């Protein structure tokens, strides 16, 4: 690999370890920066600098890894918070519908909790997206807190309905119950994964 590419790729590799967010979001950022760095390095080369010096000058112009990682942290964390909330809100009905059929609305004790989670999530989505033209925008740390809260509420909700069914319901364990419990267990697994992502994003934000 040419020296200029090594310099730019080393820089991007160092940055990759410091960026929070999903792999897809991080790769998009790195692709965009790679294009900009290559463009700038080419300009330096056109002005007579050797390849390696041109790449080093481009990297220097872009800022230190710490500076760039800190600049991106808030935006990437906000996007991640929005994705987590959107995923849980969109998939929520596919879990909830089975419990409503199995236990009826009156038999689902976690409905107020789920309602609060949906409201919290919608509030974060509204104040971090296009509606910020009219609404005050939410800071990244607060958006992440909102997403973490929604995830914890989901975990509590799933544990709540499964426990209610296991210890107190008169409904027998039939096919519908198997689907409801299975859906909740799958979401529990996903929620634990999302909670770990939230905690990782918090560490990245705090260190930025």
């Amino acid at each position, binding site marked *: 690999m040419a020296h200029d590419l090594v310099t730019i790729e080393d820089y991007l590799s160092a940055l990759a370890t410091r960026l929070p967010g999903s792999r897809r979001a991080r790769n*998009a*950022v790195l*692709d*965009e*920066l*790679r*294009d*900009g760095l*290559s*463009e*700038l390095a080419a300009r330096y080369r056109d002005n007579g600098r050797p390849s390696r010096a041109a790449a080093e000058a481009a990297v220097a*112009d*872009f*800022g*230190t890894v710490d*500076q*760039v990682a*800190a*600049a*991106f942290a*808030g*935006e990437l964390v*906000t*996007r991640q918070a929005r994705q987590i909330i959107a995923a849980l809100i969109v998939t929520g009905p596919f879990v909830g519908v089975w419990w409503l059929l199995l236990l009826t609305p009156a038999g689902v004790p976690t409905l107020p909790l789920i309602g609060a989670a949906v409201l919290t999530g919608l509030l974060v989505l509204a104040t*971090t*997206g*296009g509606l*910020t*033209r009219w609404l005050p*925008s939410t800071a990244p740390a607060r958006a992440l807190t909102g997403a973490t809260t929604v995830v914890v509420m989901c975990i509590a909700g799933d544990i709540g309905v499964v426990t209610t069914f296991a210890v107190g319901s008169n409904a027998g364990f039939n096919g519908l119950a198997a689907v409801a419990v299975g859906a909740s267990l799958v979401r529990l697994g996903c929620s634990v994964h999302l909670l770990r992502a939230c905690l990782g994003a918090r560490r990245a934000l705090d260190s930025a």
Partner: protein
Amino acid sequence: MRPEALKGHLDALLLAVLEAGPQHGYAVIDTVREGSGGTFDLPTGTVYPALHRLERSGFVHSRWDTVGGRRRRTYELTLAGRQALMAERDVWDTFSTAVSALLARRPWPTTS
């Protein structure tokens, strides 16, 4: 100029650059630097997140192309972005007129 001095104005500057037509991220940032005669010389990599924030707010739209084997992200102003830019211009006109009136050099009052 210290980066803090740009705080609050960077979004408007980026929108103003994109008013002329779609541009890729580095070109937008470079135009801000060149257009300010080098006064706004921020580390290039730290300006990209502002473009992403503008997209999240719906003021710009981006698309990916492939140029010379590299993926390139191009930004374009949306209708909401044009409206926001017009509003920012009005605010800036009012603000700069008031500040200029107060900061304008005046001759020292003569003492008799």
